[in-house]
């Protein structure tokens, strides 16, 4: 399996570095743009939640994103040293409503569960770890 990882701070400005890393990884291993875009979308959802809600005010943290690829499979693991939190425990979002009443909360992790084949959370030591897996047609 081919791997690549990067550390960023818990800062929104750092997220674009992850986007570039994923795109470069996709080009190197000739992974389709559709899959790369899905991975980047899921990482956007997970990382923005961690950065917005995972740390006390002004706390500095470190988030690791680890990509893995082998023919037929791609994975993305997100590890953060923020407060213990399992994003998969939240209930399903409310997808009903009109344009006036519709809420978007909870849709992010819902997208992740729908776009990925497998999503799993573990607390390891002082870190939250979320791993996303997707099968890729060969």
């Amino acid at each position, binding site marked *: 399996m081919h791997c690549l990882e990067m550390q960023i701070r818990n800062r*929104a400005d750092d*997220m*674009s570095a992850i*986007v570039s890393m994923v795109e470069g990884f996709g080009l190197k291993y000739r992974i389709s*743009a*559709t899959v790369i*875009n*899905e991975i*980047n*979308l899921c990482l*956007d*959802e997970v*990382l*923005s939640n961690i950065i917005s809600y995972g740390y006390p005010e002004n706390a500095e943290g470190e988030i690791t994103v680890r990509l893995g690829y082998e023919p037929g499979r791609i994975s993305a693991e997100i590890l953060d040293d923020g407060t213990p939190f399992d994003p998969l425990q939240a209930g399903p979002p409310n*997808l*009903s409503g*009109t*344009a*006036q009443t*519709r809420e*978007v909360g909870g*849709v*992010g992790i*819902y*997208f992740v569960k*729908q*776009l990925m084949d497998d999503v799993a959370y573990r607390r390891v030591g002082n870190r939250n770890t979320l791993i996303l897996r997707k099968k890729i047609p060969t």
Partner: protein
Amino acid sequence: MQIIEAQSDGVLIVEPHGRMDSTTAKPFGDRVVELIRTGSHHVLIDLRQVLYISSAGFRSLLIARKLIDEYKGNLVLCGMSPEIKRLFEIGHFTDLFMICGTREEGIDKAR
């Protein structure tokens, strides 16, 4: 994210380029809100150059939709790729927007 703006037949066409995510959605949304508030009440957002839309992007689109309703205007979306269309379906956003295929259809609906 680059945003190209054009006018056609009284309709403002907004064409964002790239990814609509937690970093780019707010500046995009702010720009559309500004355009609506300064008099553009017939707006077509052409999504043909958008790679993907995360929940932040959908939030911005909804904000624009709610605002244009206040002005009793029209907001139409067009140019969705199959991948973008799928995101709208997963999030149950399809019923919340007027969606057209081509830009021509979109201009027509937005007038």
